[in-house]
């Protein structure tokens, strides 16, 4: 039984990472209808920015994160202005491919500037853990879960109560109508990219500190971040709550599968757990494409 609880705890940690990354996907999809595949690269870049701030500029951790968040927002705005704005009105696969191009762009930049430090970001949590009964969980993992919940809460308040949040919801429903209402759609879109940049930095910081799979700082963060896609599809591409719930479900399922696969599904070859999120995603797409909490897509002829 302890095994089960331990796996659930570790799964929640992994899921919180997926949730944080996923929130970045969601905020851009919600405002623009585009899946920003470059988000995975922005997470990695965010991690390295924080690493740079703590290791090279020697800033204290909290200051480093705040500075990097600002840089992340700037990155989002620059990407939107320079590239994404030119793609307005283009077919959706072209826009997604442009985000793929940005994703590809990030790797050589990161590896050239920072090479491969092989170490983690230093955080106040270190690798200290909390033990409840026989179940262990790292402090940094708990911090990630709390952070994901906090960001979700901020999003909720933002979309419900602030002017820009409501404007963003309006833009997501119908851009033309929003324009007609006097909403500055361009600014809203830029804002959504800025928020995605900030969330990317947060997700990257936790990943770089050793949360979730524990691989720490490295370009492998991009690969892990891509796995947040099944989480947002499950939750609903335009639902922040969906990203968190979907992330947790996928994370927990993934670790449980790894732990029990040999007992429950012995006929499946090893390593199924790593591909399971994608299988779940495919099933969701065929059965219920809008996920658990997403808005149903109604097409008008």
């Amino acid at each position, binding site marked *: 039984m302890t095994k089960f609880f331990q796996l659930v705890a570790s799964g929640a940690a*992994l899921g919180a990472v997926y949730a944080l990354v996923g929130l970045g996907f969601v905020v851009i999809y919600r405002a623009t209808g585009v899946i920003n595949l470059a988000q995975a690269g922005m997470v990695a870049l965010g991690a390295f920015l924080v690493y740079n701030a703590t290791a090279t500029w020697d800033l204290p951790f909290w200051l480093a994160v705040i500075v990097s968040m600002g840089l992340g927002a700037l990155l989002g705005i620059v990407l939107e202005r320079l590239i994404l704005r030119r793609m307005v009105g283009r077919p959706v696969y072209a826009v997604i491919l442009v985000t793929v191009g940005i994703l590809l762009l990030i790797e050589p930049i990161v590896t050239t500037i920072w090479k491969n430090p*092989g170490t983690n970001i*230093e955080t106040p949590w270190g690798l200290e*853990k909390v033990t409840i009964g026989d179940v262990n969980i*790292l402090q940094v993992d708990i911090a990630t879960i709390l952070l994901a919940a906090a960001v979700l809460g901020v999003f909720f308040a933002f979309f419900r109560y602030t002017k820009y949040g409501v404007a963003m919801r309006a833009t997501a429903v119908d851009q033309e109508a929003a324009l007609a209402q006097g909403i500055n759609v361009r600014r809203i879109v830029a804002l959504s990219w800025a928020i995605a940049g900030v969330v990317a930095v947060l997700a990257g910081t936790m990943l770089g500190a050793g949360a979730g*799979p524990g691989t*720490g700082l490295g*370009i492998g963060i991009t690969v892990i971040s891509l796995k947040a896609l099944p989480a947002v599809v499950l939750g609903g591409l335009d639902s922040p709550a969906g990203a968190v719930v979907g992330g947790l479900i996928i994370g927990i399922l993934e670790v449980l599968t790894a*732990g029990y696969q040999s007992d429950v599904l012995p006929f499946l070859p090893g390593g199924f*757990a790593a591909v399971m999120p994608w299988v779940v995603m495919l099933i969701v797409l065929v059965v219920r494409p809008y996920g658990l909490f997403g808005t149903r897509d109604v097409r008008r002829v």
Partner: protein
Amino acid sequence: MYRRGLRAFLTLAVAAGLVVGVTAPAVARVHAKAPPSTDGFDGKTIKLGVITPLTGTVSLIGTPLTAGNQLWWDYVNKELGGVGGKYKVELVEEDSQYQPATAIQAYDKIKGDVVDFQQILGTQVTKALLPKMQVDQSAGGPATLDSTWVKNPNLFPIGAPYQIEAINGLDYYTKNGGKGKKVCALAQDDEFGQAGLDGFAYAKKALKLKTGPTERFKTGEDLTAQIQSLSDAKCDAVLTVATAVDATAIVTKSIALNFSPQMIALGVFWLPVFAQSPNLQQFLVDHVIVSTQPGAAWGDSSIPGMSAFLKQQQQYAPSQKPDPYFAFGYVQGQALYQILQKAVKNGDLSHEGILKASNQVGTLKFDGLSGDYKYGKSAADRNPPRATTVFKVDPTQPIGLAPVGPPAASKAATTYPIPG
């Protein structure tokens, strides 16, 4: 507006690119018109090929390895005048990205330009290139320590194989508090992992080990389940057949899940920077030992060749930080140097000539930086060194490792049968 200007620029760029693209094959053709049996030797300079990952996650091994190769040849070129005192050596480097397909293309590209290969990194890459090398009669130094390479005539291996590293590490453990304890294994799910597990299987019989589960993982995977399983089985020690790419995750997860076995790791697990990580340091010092080549003991003056190596490093590669792969690359250079010396003496630097020289060179010596490697009259006679050094983690040392004793060959390691 911006779009029109960009378009015009693009059109011009494409036109320029076309011109370049059409003439490039012509330019390349000039190179290729040289006779097909190009030796990579033009009477003055000997060229050696390097196929290694210079980008991607494994570049953290490929880059220092190549730098180590380069240091050796810088020394030979500048202080000894080159091979045979006459012929300078140049390295031709290609990025394999650690993938067989890319490596094959790289091989095709430079095979006509080089005499042979100084370094080929990766078990899969080596396996992929071997059929071609057999056809072309070329040879190279594999930067992988699988025992399957020992008796391959197209390869010039150095160093004690992974299997030997594992056996010696396990032997040390049983003699130092591990007698009768439960030993498990955590291995990468590929050829490299299998090599370590082969050593484990042999050691189990030879040392009469009590064993527990063997967990496999794919690099980059979340390791919670595997570590949990080992922890549940109450393993006292874990033979960890993993590379530095996964080391951080393995240690982090072990800390997270409160699993503190004695970890016995192979040389490729280690990176000097790990010892400096405040998060991982305590665990590493308390629980990890590394069994690897003697030359990894950077700065250990009991090794005869170490002071010369360090002196050359200060002079020709002063910005190089202490790194066991750098040392290994240097030793690779030493090995090929001895073979090339023989080939020059025989007056034959063709592929066949080098292969012949490798069967005449006798025993390769490295001044203690690596174990002596007997090459014998044919590849089937070869015998790798059976001694490795066991290190514990010590952040005060240049590479973060301190030897627990001199290089030692356990009885089990000495009797391990090399395939082939």
